[in-house]
């Protein structure tokens, strides 16, 4: 079991309502999981809870059977790597410098294992195909290149779980495909558990083993794409009418939308 969440509730100090309201779910190892739901449904807050960025008020979170609250920041970083929605730096580090920083979670003061570090860094850069960018400062990179560097940095943490927060939402479709193919490859070859917050339902359908559909701080539906991405569910959660069709793959629905005027 990679993640187990039981009756998790969270409320920001200043807000009147709970952002997350007694959520319970499990994520098995080596799964590709998509978290979907309308804006403001609590997806990003859930992610913050899972990475200990905020203190949860009720409930429990377990990462590989260890209670999250009992882990240090470093221990969490050894288990979970995160790729944020968009990350910008004020300083133009090179790709290699950034990826190397991913090793921090495994370093102890005055003790260096340069060989392992170097191996892991090279492997991460190879997997994300950024070896040719190693010495390039990030100010001279495109959005797609930078996002691959950030993924490589997370991989250098050698995490068991990789969490992405709409990591491709500002990229064009070819870069989106490239990143999701890469994630699928990592998921299959390196047995990485992947949890991705997604807006594009078709991407979620095509890549995920499991989908967690959220609404107003609660889980509305959890299951395979076929089970969760039904026209009725989408109508209920997003309030839009869509057409759900199955083409050659009967397990992965295609969702199409229509203009509401006319």
């Amino acid at each position: 079991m990679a993640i187990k969440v039981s009756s998790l509730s969270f409320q920001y100090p200043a807000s009147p309502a709970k952002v997350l309201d007694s959520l319970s779910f499990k994520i098995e190892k080596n799964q590709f999981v998509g978290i979907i739901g309308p804006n403001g449904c609590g997806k990003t807050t859930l992610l913050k809870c899972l990475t200990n960025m905020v203190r949860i008020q009720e409930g429990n979170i377990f990462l590989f059977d260890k209670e999250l609250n009992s882990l240090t920041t470093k221990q969490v970083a050894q288990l979970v790597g995160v790729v944020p929605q968009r990350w910008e730096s004020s300083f133009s580090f090179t790709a290699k410098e950034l990826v190397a920083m991913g090793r921090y979670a495994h370093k102890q003061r005055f003790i260096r294992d340069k060989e392992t570090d170097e191996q892991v860094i090279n492997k991460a850069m190879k997997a994300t195909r950024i070896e040719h960018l190693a010495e390039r400062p990030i100010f001279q990179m495109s959005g797609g290149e930078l996002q691959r560097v950030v993924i490589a940095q997370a991989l250098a943490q050698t995490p068991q779980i990789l969490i992405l927060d709409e990591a491709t939402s500002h990229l064009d479709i070819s870069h989106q495909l490239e990143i999701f193919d890469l994630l699928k490859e990592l998921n299959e070859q390196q047995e990485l558990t992947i949890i991705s917050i997604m807006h594009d339902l078709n991407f979620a359908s095509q890549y995920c083993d499991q989908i967690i559909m959220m609404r107003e701080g609660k889980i509305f539906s959890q299951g395979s794409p076929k089970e969760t991405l039904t026209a009725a569910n989408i109508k209920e959660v997003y309030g839009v009418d869509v057409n759900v069709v199955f083409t050659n793959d009967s397990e992965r629905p295609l969702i199409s939308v229509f203009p509401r005027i006319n």
Partner: protein
Amino acid sequence: MKKVSVVLKLSNQKKTLIIISLIIVLVLSIAICLTLGSAQLSLGQVVKAVLKRIPLVGERLGYSVSPMDDLIIHSIRLPRILLAILVGCALGAAGVVFQGVFHNPMAEPFVIGVSSGAALGATIAFVLGLNFSFFGLSSVPIMAFLGSMLTTFVVYNIARVGRKVPLTVLLLAGVAVGSFMSALNSLLMVFNREESTKIVFWLMGGFSARGWEHVQAAFPYILIGYLVIVFYLEELNLLSLGEEKAQLMGVDVEKVQLILIGAASLIAAAAVSVSGIIGFVGLIVPHIIRILIGPDHKFLLPTATIFGGIFLLWTDTLARTVFSPIEVPVGILTSMAGAPFFVYLLRKNRYK
């Protein structure tokens, strides 16, 4: 929009070479600046006089140095030069840390109240005519140091929410407390006109009439603060990517932030208390060096430290020689060079 900036790509060996060259430049600068001043001394005289004073080595040298030369070099020029270097190093290093922790190239030690607190402390010492001394140091630098540390503490605690310190709030709190302190400062000056000339000159910052006691007083604090920073360079690199990123990569952000801001404030406060307010060094030095060798703090910190020392040594030498016999407070020169540079940075960053 894509950020365009000049970034030189240098290998780590080249960066190390730059650091070594800067150390050589620093040593040469010390020798040259020792010869400059109202009394003309040759490089030979200077080298001889300095060597003669080195314990164990000096006694074995078979020449003698005139008492006058010895006085000028050892009691007047050398402590002043070393103090200028020390303060320059401190401000350069503190600037690097503040810009890294705030992941903002516009930050500098004075934004969180180090300077305004020091100014108020010094003013109070002048106005009350405080006349105590501590380890050979007079009341003004001591009060400046206390004012500086106290203000930093107040600003930090205003901005603190639980264990977190949102950086924008910290900067705004620094501005607010800073203006309050400046107002108090002016008020004190209005009611104590006879002291105001002294205060104004102190505020302008400089090294005239500074001696060994100032070097000895500031050095331990600066050294301690610096060693702490060196211990946390790896974390500083991660913090410069933003707090959230740093935490997700395993840094105990709140703790490390507190330690680094504390150490950098200590360094800056120690520097300001013996020099008065010397603006913009902490801002421009890290900037120039970052353009030169990149943002990796393992190289950025030592390079900016040494360069800060060289920079302030030469500005102070200019300040005491160019308009001789009138001495210009060095703070005026650094601000005259720094302010236009700051404007240039603002313009350059506008379209990002």
